[in-house]
């Protein structure tokens, strides 16, 4: 039997033919990175390879690293393997990594989302023999409504708040979700104020040519009265902190795929939960897997046991792989 294209080692996903890892959590010599979230792009590797679009955020987060870049679709030879990066639709610059060894093709998809969001490079299905998939929302209770509907809901909340004289305070992770929400918000309603953590990432993305609506960074001098009708975008951790005091009466909102579930929404104890995720929903996962034509599917983080059983019943060779990827956490404020 031939050696598999990709194997699963204590350091992470490994390609023996090319002697490289994909999104490793242990320290390695050569790391191919799908995207800049902290559970996929970690510090401490000797050499990195990522898409040119992902590189600025990775550099911003990891500092001075030896990072080589590659364009989407460009094929590159590493040892006996040929690799190429393809849009994953998760966050700007995110990629699925295709690895081919002797005609056998394996795709590690990292995190992905199938619905185009108008911000990041739309997901591109890649034909392969083996597909490594996440299953963060791998249950049929997770089905996202079209982004336009959620955007309308979000903007209506903003308008209602503006009318009632309260400040809408929207919690979102500073890389990815925050910019996605920016793209969904209607700047005609009022000014958008941002927390420093969000604004830092905005600056990095704007510098690489991403178009985002105008934002105003909140400083110690910022007062709500100077920005009537404003919406505030901040990391979730800021929502419960003293940082919000300067805005007076607020209405809190949180955007996450988990907001689909009432119990989790209530536990967050925010006024409004908006179902917005950068991960594929149930239909998205199933459609993506079908589009690859893969016979073998390795399920990483999320509802791995349930989702792999479902795939097995559908006639695929599905297995579970234990990784240290987290996906969109229901509880902590990481990623």
């Amino acid at each position, binding site marked *: 039997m031939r050696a598999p294209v990709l194997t699963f080692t204590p350091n992470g996903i490994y390609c023996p033919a090319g002697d490289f890892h994909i999104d490793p959590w242990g320290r390695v010599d050569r790391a191919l990175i799908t995207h800049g979230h902290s559970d996929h792009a970690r510090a401490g590797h000797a050499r990195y390879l990522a898409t040119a679009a992902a590189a600025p955020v990775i550099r911003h987060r990891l500092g001075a690293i030896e990072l080589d870049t590659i364009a989407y679709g460009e094929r590159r030879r590493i040892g006996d393997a040929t690799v190429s990066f393809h849009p994953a639709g998760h966050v700007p610059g995110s990629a699925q990594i295709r690895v081919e060894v002797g005609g056998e093709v394996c795709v590690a998809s990292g995190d992905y989302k199938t619905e185009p969001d108008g911000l990041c490079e739309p997901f591109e299905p890649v034909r392969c023999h083996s597909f490594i998939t996440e299953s963060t929302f791998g249950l049929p209770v997770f089905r996202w409504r079209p982004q336009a509907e959620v955007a309308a809901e979000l903007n209506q909340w903003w308008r209602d708040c503006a009318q009632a004289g309260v400040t809408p305070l929207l919690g979102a992770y500073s890389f990815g979700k925050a910019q996605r929400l920016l793209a969904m918000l209607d700047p005609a309603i009022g000014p958008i104020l941002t927390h420093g953590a969000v604004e830092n990432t905005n600056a990095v993305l704007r510098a690489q040519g991403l178009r985002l609506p105008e934002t105003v960074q909140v400083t110690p001098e910022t007062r709500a009265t100077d920005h009537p009708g404003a919406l505030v975008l901040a990391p979730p951790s800021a929502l419960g902190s003293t940082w919000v005091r300067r805005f007076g009466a607020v209405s809190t909102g949180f955007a996450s795929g988990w907001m*689909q579930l009432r119990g989790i929404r209530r536990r967050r104890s925010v006024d409004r939960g908006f179902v917005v995720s950068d991960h594929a929903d149930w239909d998205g996962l199933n459609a993506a897997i079908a589009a690859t034509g893969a016979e073998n599917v390795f399920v990483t983080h999320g509802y791995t046991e349930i989702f792999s059983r479902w795939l097995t019943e559908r006639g695929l060779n599905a297995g579970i792989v234990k990784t240290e990827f987290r996906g969109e956490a229901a509880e902590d404020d990481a990623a």
Partner: protein
Amino acid sequence: MKRFARLYAEIDATTRTSRKVAALAAYFREAPEPDRLWTVALFSGRRPRRAVTATRLREWAAERASLPLWLVEEAHPVVGDLAETIALILPPPEGDEDETLAHWIDVLRDAAKAPEEERKATVLAAWAQMDMARRFLFNKLITGSFRVGVSRKLMTRALAEATGRDEAGLTHRLMGDWTPDTVTWHSLIEAEDPVADASRPYPFCLAHALEAGPDSLGDPADWRAEWKWDGIRGQLILRGGAWHLWSRGEELISDAFPEFARAADFLPEGTVIDGEVLAWDGTAPLPFAALQKRIGRKQVPKSVLAQAPALMIAYDLLEWQGEDLRAVPFAERRAQLDTLLAPLPGDAPILPSPPLAFDSWEGLAAQRATARDRRAEGLMLKRADSPYHAGRKRGDWWKWKLDPFTIDAVMIYAQAGSGRRANLYTDFTFAVWDGNALVPFTKAYSGLSDDEFRQITAWVGRNTQQRFGPVRQVVPEHVFEIAFEGIQASPRHKSGVALRFPRMARWRKDKPVQEANTLADLKAMLAAYG
């Protein structure tokens, strides 16, 4: 159902009580009468008889969604609510109903009498005409317990706001065993001289826990003290030639306690007594477990009556000679109660709660310290001039319980919670050492902060040894201090003991697993206090 769904969405979209009340009040002003009445009924714990079992509902939903049943069953604990799970998995609606809430309740009640195939058709047709929000509510009507962030108190406050009526008066009107079929909006809420249901209890006056001790309460002379018993708080009502016993949970429990029929022999018509129902061994209460054998019974076998005879320790007199005494100061009500009970024979099933004499808080504290020897939970403090409030009002009544028993135990199994705690491991089984073995002895669900539950949940994910359905066996590594109110022998439990009100007092991160308590420690507690 659209209007009701809108109300629900408004309530659910805010964490602020004032907004919930405003949304409910607006609904009570505008909704058609049958819908209003049903909304009051639903938010006060009444619901139509179950038309479909949860099993069938799950099967039909899986079939409609073209999903295997096991997948729906796996999704349920993640969501934490079956009604919601089903609403989420069904395919998009094909139509858009525009019927009233009362209409759908009638549909369900008709379906309850129909053969199964017809029931199924009814439910599927309803799902096909509703969006996610309405499906969820429709499913809730079937599966029961309408807990949607609206307490009965909050609902009553909104009702008061909408009708301009006094909240306490409304609280009383809503007590008892009415249903939307037996009342009208007018008779329930508005009628000046309601044909009062002779069995209707008064809203119970409840106490807050005295956390810091009684020093802040002022002059001891202004207060009365008595034992706090661990039984079933109840109201004994003698009106219209009949007697009724209500529990604090507003259940009519007369059938389970036939002893009280004799009360009518001694007490006059128009009497309502508030007290504690206890199983009694002649001089002291029996453990709560003895009382548990009575709960939910329509008929009580002679053997149980003989083993655990019940009696009421009377705390308060709420009605006398047909007159509502609740506004009268406690000291006077209590004196009247004593006068009423004094002539009763020694074997009557009702005794006055013995008042405790004290002239200083220190003196009272010393008496409290002996509560356990009397099988009491601690003390009740009542201001001598206080009225009998409706519900839990801070200031006039305090419960001053003993510190609980505690034991350090090892967590060995974890299970996810439901509702607000779905997806979070919150239900744990604990064990103590018996030699080198860990013997499970109790479960506990509460006492940790959300943050601690999150930490433990992440840990469970990484430290699962084995799965038994929804239950995970975890590495025995964490020690928790378990607090509880009582301990009894129990042949049904492997450990031989059963605890009363166990909960997690503290996560003992400082304690290695070897230093948890032993089965011998538990047995010693049982011998001393069981």
